[in-house]
């Protein structure tokens, strides 16, 4: 066991997989010699050399296209898209190419790659560098979508993503890079498609992802301590595949569902989960399904505005309390 930052967990995860398999290669902007703009890839260039860790031009379509072509012909590329907002400049390769080539070719083509990208708000960067865009990937059939909330999950889920035979979009949260957590020694390998109940509870289920997980946990503690409401907190971790068994099981027990989503409201991942629960667990529900999201607007830059625009612990507590009253 060692304490590691989420940032260092990223580089450890990449190193673990590169050391294990020579076919794992890594490309992106400023990832090599410079160690990445978030310093999450420090040391990889030195350890694995310029043939496996390659700095690219500012050409996101070339980055993802190259990753795809290499994946289709035998490598296991990891591609970095520096900020998840930039998935928009290479969205054709995300949505129309890597997600569909296996299906369109009737199973002839494969595409085992990982696109890792820094997602989410909290750095006062403004509307084009702060978005939570997990739903941009979740809505595209053929992709797998992961967003870890802790250093240990970063490593385990990343390893699973690299070893997975399908394209995985791996969302790292910018505001978690500095987060510290205990991480077991040795190889770590987790399983895609598994949610985690981080806090058992009996009164309501709160589902969260990435940065929102910590806030949901804190809110749950406060709800218990201050209001006697005992919430079960689930870290979804993997949006595709989605661990509906875990979610539906929890709702069957608590009879109430809340989601805590960093994304702007419309068509967020929580909408999908809400719709699944409102269909399949309708008769388990004792009250409304409530989504706690960032309001549906672009993000402001200023610190005081950014601080309140995302779901806060206060807002989670208030919303759950009011809704459970």
């Amino acid at each position: 066991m060692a304490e590691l930052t989420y940032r260092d967990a990223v580089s450890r995860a990449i190193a673990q997989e590169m050391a294990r398999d020579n076919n794992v290669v890594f490309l992106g902007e400023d990832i090599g010699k410079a160690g990445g703009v978030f310093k999450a890839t420090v040391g990889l260039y030195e350890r694995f050399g310029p043939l496996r860790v390659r700095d690219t031009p500012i050409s996101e379509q070339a980055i993802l296209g190259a990753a795809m072509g290499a994946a289709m012909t035998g490598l296991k590329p990891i591609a970095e898209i520096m900020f998840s907002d930039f998935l928009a400049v290479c969205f054709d390769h995300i949505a129309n190419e890597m997600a569909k080539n296996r299906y369109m070719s009737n199973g002839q083509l494969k595409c085992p790659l990982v696109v890792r990208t820094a997602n989410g708000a909290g750095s006062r960067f403004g509307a084009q560098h702060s978005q939570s865009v997990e739903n941009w990937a979740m809505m595209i059939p053929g992709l797998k979508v992961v967003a870890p909330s802790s250093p240990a999950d970063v490593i385990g889920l990343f390893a699973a993503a690299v070893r997975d035979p399908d394209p995985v979009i791996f969302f790292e949260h910018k505001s978690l890079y500095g987060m510290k957590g205990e991480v077991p020694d040795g190889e770590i390998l987790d399983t895609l498609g598994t949610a985690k109940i981080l806090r058992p509870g009996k009164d309501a289920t709160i589902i969260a992802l990435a940065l929102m997980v910590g806030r949901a946990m804190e809110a749950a503690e406060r709800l218990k301590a201050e209001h006697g409401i005992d919430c079960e907190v689930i870290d979804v971790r993997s949006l595709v595949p989605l661990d509906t068994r875990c979610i539906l099981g929890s709702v069957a027990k608590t009879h109430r569902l809340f989601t805590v989503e960093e994304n702007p409201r419309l068509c967020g991942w929580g909408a999908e989960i809400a719709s699944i629960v409102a269909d399949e667990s309708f008769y388990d529900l004792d009250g409304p399904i409530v989504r706690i999201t960032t309001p549906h607007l672009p993000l402001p830059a200023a610190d005081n505005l950014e601080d309140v625009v995302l779901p806060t612990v206060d807002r989670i507590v208030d919303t759950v309390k009011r809704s459970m009253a």
Partner: protein
Amino acid sequence: MNQHAKTPSKPVNDDIGEAVRLDLYRRQMVIRQAETRAYDLFLQNLVKGTSHLSLGQEAIAAGFAVAMKAGDTSFCTYRGHAHTLARGVPVEQVLGELMQRDNGLMRGKGGSMHLTSVEHGVMGSYAIIGAHLPIACGSAWRSQYQGTDEVSVVFFGDGTTNIGAFHESLNFAAVWKLPVVFVCENNLYMEYTPIKDVTAVEHPAADRASAYGLERIVIDGNDADAVYREAQKAYAKARAGDGPSMIECMTYRHSGHSRADPAKYRPEGELEEWLKKDPIKIYQERCRQFGISDAMMAKIDAEVLQVVDDATEACKASPSPPLELITTDVYADGGWAWRN
């Protein structure tokens, strides 16, 4: 031989040789006949969805394919029937896909715009302009990384040179010195708009080669020998580790952009001019020049016709794909489960 005096070039030494020449002839003929058949089947309402023929552009597909070796990869567009056939994919599977039958190359799941045969090195046909150029770079990167001498060849049209992915790919390939060959088939039109109306330079690919430190290459895309020679050069360069090439092949499509297009936007007489430069005609004359008899060619034509006829019958006899296919091969486990 006097009646062939107009033939563009008549080398004394035959650098190509009869075997290759017959191969070039045969592959062009396969494309010509299979695509003509596709057109007939479309008129009979047997081709579903769209289709994009390369009638008039056969020499490019044949020339580049004949110069390839096993392990080399092709990346095609929606106008990829020709390139797929040229790599030896059976006519039946191609026509079957156009007819969306169960015997199709992808059993009807992909459709005519996505012909793929990994077994033959055809790593997909791509229907969104420009997307496959960086993907071809990736395949070339893999060759380079693994130290093989395999080349990736990517085909695209003149109109594709104005989209962003073109630019990113060319620069990327040049900087990484990737063994990839960019083949622009300049047939003068994007869908219906003349390329010259929307492009800042006369030769949309070649006039931009210098922007990537590459040589400016424009060739007669209707002369299979010229194409074959240029392909050999570019492949040799790539295999030697000397990086990418871009080749602009001047050509013309005889039919419309897609099955829906009667091509009325063309100026009068333009098609007729180009029909005089029909690659099949040019190549038949070339063959005669090098002593290949009309009888030999007729024999090939007949063999090809037989193949196309047999394929047509097989396709007509093939059922539609089974409904179970809908939910297969979304993911590598063979299924489509996005949840447990």
